[in-house]
């Protein structure tokens, strides 16, 4: 479980996040949604500590991450897996080395064990026979999968994904969503996904928080999202053609 309390962040005099509080549950896919530029990525970066918030705290299972010293932060970060928007794979390494990398730096595992583990994860995300390929040789969807494999290789307790299906075709998007959803349940971890894709929201939104111009306007789940009564959220949800058709039926 991850708990955030009163997170605020501004860049210069531009307020990007204002007093965001919420809880992300264990064994669930938690979604942060909102339109472009509302501060979703900034919030995610505040949670993992890539950006330090001006105000507020982040707790990882009751451990205060925001006020932890460097050692404790490193300790918690070892339990974090993260999938970045563009994959963020190391282009100096091949697919297999990318997936093994967290094990290289965070564990003292012998090489054959690391290879086994990496292959297991690659298989889990549906990638086989690409081990030796360079990052530049694989497609966008494959990069996301490799990114997921790298994020889960060291058995994290917390998984973060920033727009896991941006730039992918609808079918691949759904596959990636389902993959994240299954892994979350399989490993019983706390997963936080940033997205603005309504397909993901309906498909895997077990807990959803809706950001609007740096404020949290709503929180709930995919069953309730279509009748939230929040005008801005309705605009967001029914901007999708299919959703608005369904609504008018």
């Amino acid at each position: 479980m991850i708990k955030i309390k009163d997170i605020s962040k501004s860049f210069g005099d531009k307020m990007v996040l204002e007093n965001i509080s919420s809880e992300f549950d264990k064994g669930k896919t938690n979604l942060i949604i909102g339109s472009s530029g509302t501060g979703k990525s900034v919030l995610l970066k505040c949670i993992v500590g890539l950006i330090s918030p001006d105000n507020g705290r982040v707790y990882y299972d009751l451990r205060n991450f925001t006020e932890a010293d460097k050692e404790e932060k490193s300790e918690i970060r070892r339990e974090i897996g993260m999938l970045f928007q563009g994959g963020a794979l190391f282009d100096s390494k091949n697919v297999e080395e990318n997936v093994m990398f967290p094990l290289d730096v965070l564990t003292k595992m012998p090489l054959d064990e690391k290879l086994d583990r990496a292959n297991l994860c690659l298989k889990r995300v549906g990638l086989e026979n690409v081990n030796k390929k360079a990052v530049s040789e694989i497609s966008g969807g494959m990069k996301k999968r490799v990114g997921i494999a790298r994020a889960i290789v060291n058995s994290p307790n917390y998984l973060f994904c920033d727009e896991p299906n941006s730039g992918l075709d609808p079918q691949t998007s759904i596959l990636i969503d389902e993959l994240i959803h299954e892994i979350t349940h399989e490993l019983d971890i706390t997963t936080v996904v940033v997205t603005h894709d309504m397909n993901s929201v309906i498909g895997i939104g077990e807990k959803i928080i809706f950001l609007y111009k740096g404020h949290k306007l709503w929180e709930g789940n995919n069953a309730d999202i279509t009748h939230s009564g929040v005008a801005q959220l309705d605009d967001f949800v029914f901007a999708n053609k299919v959703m608005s058709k369904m609504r008018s039926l």
Partner: protein
Amino acid sequence: MKGFGRYMMFLGSLFVRRETFATYYKLILEECVQIGVNSALLFILVSTFIGAVTTVQTAFNMVSPLIPRFVIAQVVREMVVLELAPTIMALIYAGKIGSSMASGLGTMRITEQIDALEVMGINSSSYLVLPKIVASILMYPLLVVLSGVCAIIGGYIVGTFIHIITPTEYVSGLRFGFNSFEIVVALTKSVVFSFLISSISSFKGYFTKGGALEVGIASTAAVTTSVIAILLADYIIVNLLLQ
């Protein structure tokens, strides 16, 4: 001035929360190979030609029959050891290795690879930059020695080939009045320059913001700033050591 303060803080950050020695050993080795492969050929080519041209031009300027021919070789030696090998090659090193360090790190920054390292709990600046600096300090002096040798050989080949100096004159000129302190000066320069180039270029690349365009800008800025730093440092070192 603010940039200089940030640069100093950046250097400080390289030494906190480091990885194990074994990790660095491997990274440094990789960087050394990278630097060697990338620049050895260029260095050999450039310095051989510079040596050759210096010889011909020195000979051209020494028209007086009163000056013995071996002086040509002596002049070539002085210029190569003191300035051409360590300083001119540093400018080339900045253009070749410095710019590639800056653009490499800049690309890692804008594609979130550096963030990915940080999220894993790794001190990314230390992990990525320290090996580059150490490898540069190890490799650049070797490259300078290589250049010096190539330049002198270049001078020898051209000088004897077009008969402006005989092999015996050339060799005795190389030996005449040789002060081994010059080698100390040359090596001091190479250590200082390689540190400046690698750290400044890494600094510029590491703090890239934005997109592909900014990576290009960072890489140009890395070369420009390194070149200025080299020239300043050159002046200071010569003043301190050759008084």
